[in-house]
Each structure stands twice: as structure tokens, then as C-alpha cells.
């Protein structure tokens, strides 16, 4: 599928505008460049042992929405003619003037990591999300320098469905139980707040590693036998052995990011991760310790890594689901994200809630 990848680096005006493919196409600053995906392996940097060199700092922001626009049906790729006719972006497979695309099952762009915006309700708190907020324009900036990839794909999620499959009945109940608990206890104290607010992990960190909404930068460091992955949000690292074999952890040991093991299949690094906790969510679904994620890293040219993934948790989804995103190299280091350093928000949120409760009690 990588031959379908169209464009690489662009500077877009909207920091978090999802599904901006069509918009990006029309922007003067777009610098679309064909990605060399032919077997021209000469374009692939390699390490001394002959494997593709994955090293670099990449952005995994993409203009491709997580779920396929509903009006695209099973259409997995736009054609150049589709784009010329004005399809893409928020319009999906409709041409200008036609009805809006509609949602294909949730998720927004690369920023789909567990923070859907349906009905303007914050999924983690059950409260209306405050839509009015600071943005880069407060600093007098009309645009930004976020590097993002775009492609002819209609959705990150691959296959005819183009969306995450339904939850199992068991997972639906688990989700409802968690929501019911949170409605009562979410403001009890710091330990009851979402993992992101607690600076433990960000919802889209994965694996699969998807755009975090901002600071979506990933550094890959490679040596003989290992690949290290550093995600700027929220400061976490994964050390992946690349010599194959199953995890060395017993089944009873669970970790926030699981336990990864990798091996090379030709020029592709294949990583299987197991041993997740049952305390996290993935795309807002309450996953279990049966979660398994397969990731495939391909250095498709000097500036891009194709990141493919398959997610399977039979306790959570009715079937496995897969996706792919092109990561684009950026000319920037990974910056420290010392989340606890200035996390005034935790205390401020709790004091805000206490004030709200006090006010409510006084009004009774």
C-alpha cells in the first residue's frame, strides 16, 4: 500500500484540524513530495548490519482521519481524479456542495487517541468539554510548523470497514461500569483522575502509537539488537529487543506499555507487544491483559517511516483491526516533557471541583 502514499511534509495552518487533506491540498505552503516507495532500496539508510536504519525524529501527525468518512463506504483510497473533484478532508467522498461526509465511527485524524469530541462531552469526565480555549493564535501566530503526512487513504484504519470494530458485550459492560464509577468518584482525589492528567501516560501513546494531538513527536534510536522509542508525549520510552522470541515476562507481569519483542522480516521490523495492564484504554475502549499489538516499521525512504499496526483483544473488540500511518522526519530534537514539573492543573482542577461542590451545597 505504500505506493499510495502521496505527500510528505507540509506546514498547515490548523494545528489540530483533522481530516484536512483537502484543505492541505489547497494551501500554498503545502510542499507535497512524492515518496519513493519503489524497491529503490538504495534510498533507504542502513546500519552496519544491513538492516534499515530507523533512527531519526519523526512526526506522526497525519491529515488522514482515523475512521473512514461514512460517505466513502468501503472505498479505501482516493484517486487523483477524486482529489481533483474536491473530495477529501471533511467532505470525504462527496464533492463540493454535496452533503457533509458524516462520521465513520468515531475518531479524528491522527489525534484520535482516546479523546473523542462527540457531543462536546469530555469522555474522561462525562462533563461538557470547554470548547473555548487558548490556541496558537493567542501568540499572534496564524499557522504553525507542525509536520504531518497525508496520503490517498480515506482512513488510518485499513480494510473494507475503515473503522474500529464494535465492542464485545463484555467490553460494553466494562465501559459502562467504569463510566458509572467515574461519575461518582472521578473527583475524589488525584488518584481518581485520568492517567494523562496524572502524567502517567497519554491516551494515544499506545502501542499503537498514534498522534497525541500536540507534541506528536517520536524518536527512534537503533543499535544492534535493540530499537529505542521515545515519545515526547508524555515522556515515555520503549526499549524493543529485535532478536526475536516471545516476551521474557511471565504472564502475571503487566505494564502500562506492555512488553515488546521484535524481529526483522526482510526490511521490516515487526514488533509484538503483550503483557499490558487492564487499567488503560485504547481509542476509548477499556482494554484487558489479553491485548496484543503487532507493529511494523518500514523505512520507506530517507525521510519517512511507514508505521503499520494490528490490534487484537478478544475481550474488547469483536475482531482485530489494523491501520497505518506514515511518519515524517522532522528537523528538531525531542524536547523534554517534564509533565510533573508544572502540573498545576491537577491541584487547580480539584480545587475547582471543590468550589463547585461548595457552591452547590450552599444553594440547597
Amino acid at each position, binding site marked *: 500500500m505504500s505506493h499510495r502514499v502521496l505527500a510528505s511534509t507540509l506546514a498547515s495552518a490548523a494545528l489540530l484540524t483533522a481530516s484536512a487533506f483537502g484543505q492541505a491540498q489547497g494551501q500554498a505552503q503545502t510542499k507535497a513530495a512524492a515518496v519513493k516507495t519503489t524497491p529503490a532500496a538504495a534510498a533507504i539508510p542502513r546500519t552496519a548490519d544491513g538492516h534499515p536504519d530507523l533512527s531519526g525524529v519523526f512526526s506522526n501527525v497525519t491529515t488522514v482521519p482515523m475512521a473512514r468518512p461514512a460517505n466513502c463506504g468501503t472505498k479505501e483510497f482516493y484517486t487523483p481524479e477524486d482529489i481533483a473533484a474536491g473530495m477529501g478532508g471533511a467532505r470525504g467522498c462527496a464533492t463540493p456542495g454535496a452533503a457533509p461526509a458524516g462520521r465513520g465511527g468515531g475518531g479524528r485524524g491522527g489525534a484520535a487517541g482516546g479523546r473523542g469530541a462527540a457531543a462536546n462531552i469530555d469522555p474522561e469526565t462525562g462533563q461538557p468539554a470547554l470548547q473555548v480555549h487558548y490556541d496558537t493564535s*493567542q501568540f499572534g501566530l496564524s499557522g504553525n510548523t507542525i509536520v504531518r503526512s497525508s496520503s490517498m487513504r480515506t482512513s488510518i484504519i485499513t480494510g473494507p470497514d475503515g473503522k474500529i470494530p464494535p465492542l464485545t458485550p463484555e467490553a460494553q459492560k466494562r465501559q459502562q461500569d467504569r463510566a458509572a464509577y467515574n461519575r461518582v468518584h472521578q473527583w475524589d482525589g488525584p488518584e481518581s483522575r485520568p492517567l494523562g492528567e496524572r502524567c502517567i501516560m497519554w491516551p494515544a501513546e499506545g502501542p499503537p502509537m498514534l498522534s497525541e494531538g500536540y507534541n506528536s513527536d517520536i524518536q527512534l534510536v537503533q543499535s544492534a539488537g535493540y530499537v529505542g522509542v521515545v515519545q515526547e508525549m508524555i515522556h515515555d520510552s520503549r526499549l524493543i529487543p529485535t532478536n526475536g522470541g516471545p516476551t521474557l515476562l511471565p504472564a502475571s507481569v503487566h505494564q502500562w506499555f506492555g512488553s515488546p519483542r521484535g524481529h526483522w522480516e526482510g526490511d521490516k521490523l515487526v514488533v509484538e507487544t503483550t503483557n499490558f495492564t487492564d487499567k488503560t484504554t485504547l481509542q476509548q475502549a477499556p482494554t484487558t491483559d489479553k491485548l496484543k499489538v503487532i507493529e511494523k516499521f518500514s523505512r520507506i525512504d530517507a525521510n519517512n517511516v511507514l508505521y503499520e499496526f494490528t490490534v487484537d483483544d478478544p475481550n474488547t473488540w469483536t475482531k482485530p483491526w489494523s491501520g497505518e500511518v506514515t511518519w515524517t522526519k522532522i528537523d528538531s530534537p525531542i524536547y523534554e516533557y517534564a509533565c510533573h514539573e*508544572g502540573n498545576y492543573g491537577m491541584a487547580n482542577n480539584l480545587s475547582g471541583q471543590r468550589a463547585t461542590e461548595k457552591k452547590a451545597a450552599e444553594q440547597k
Partner: protein
Amino acid sequence: MKKTFAVLVASIGILVGAAPMWAHHAFASEFDEKHPIKLRGVVTQWELVNPHSWIHIDVKNADGSVTPWMIEGGSPNALFRLGFTKNSLPAGTELIIEGYQAKDGANRGVGAKLTYMDGKSLFLKPAGEDK
């Protein structure tokens, strides 16, 4: 509030069209969209800390006294990539900040629009400069 320069803004229409930056935490619980604020003050410190930067300003009251405020802003990492440095907002800069006050009533808020006294938006390149 009445002792500060803070002015309740009747409308939140000033922010229509702004692309919201996703945040690290739940804003609805921390800030009160029913209490918009407009402050005129002088920067005393810009804390470039994650997950959010904080601008400290002194707001001069009608009686001459000064009230310190803290205003939450974007992630330093994103701002650095946009070309900001720790010197981009020096102490002494006079600003007008529009935003929303903390729900607990503290002199703390979230900034939604920041403007220089000459009407320019913060950090717009001065005329005649190349960058």
C-alpha cells in the same frame, strides 16, 4: 474582582474561530466559561513548564494597589518549535489578556487572547523585521 482591572466580558464571541488546542486536563472543571475576564497587566514572569506554560502578570487596581494573576498557556515544547525562546515574553511587557477565570475564584485563568498595548497580537513580528 472589582478591585482589579478585570472586566467581565459579556460575550465569548471574541473567540469564535479560534482553533482550540487540546489540553492536558479537563478545562471545564478548572475554568469557568461563565466568568470571562479581561485583564490589563505587566508581565512579571513566564513559567515555561510542562504540561502548560504560565504567564504571571501584575494587574494595577484603581486604588493603585497591584493584584498578581496567573494565566495558563500552551505547552512550551510546541512553542519552542514555533520559534519562541524564554526571552520571547520578557518581564515588563504590558498586555491585555482575555480569558476565563478559575472556578475556585482564585486570581488565575486561562488565556484565550493576548494583545499588546498597541493592538498587535503577541509575538507578531514587528514591522521592518525579517523574522
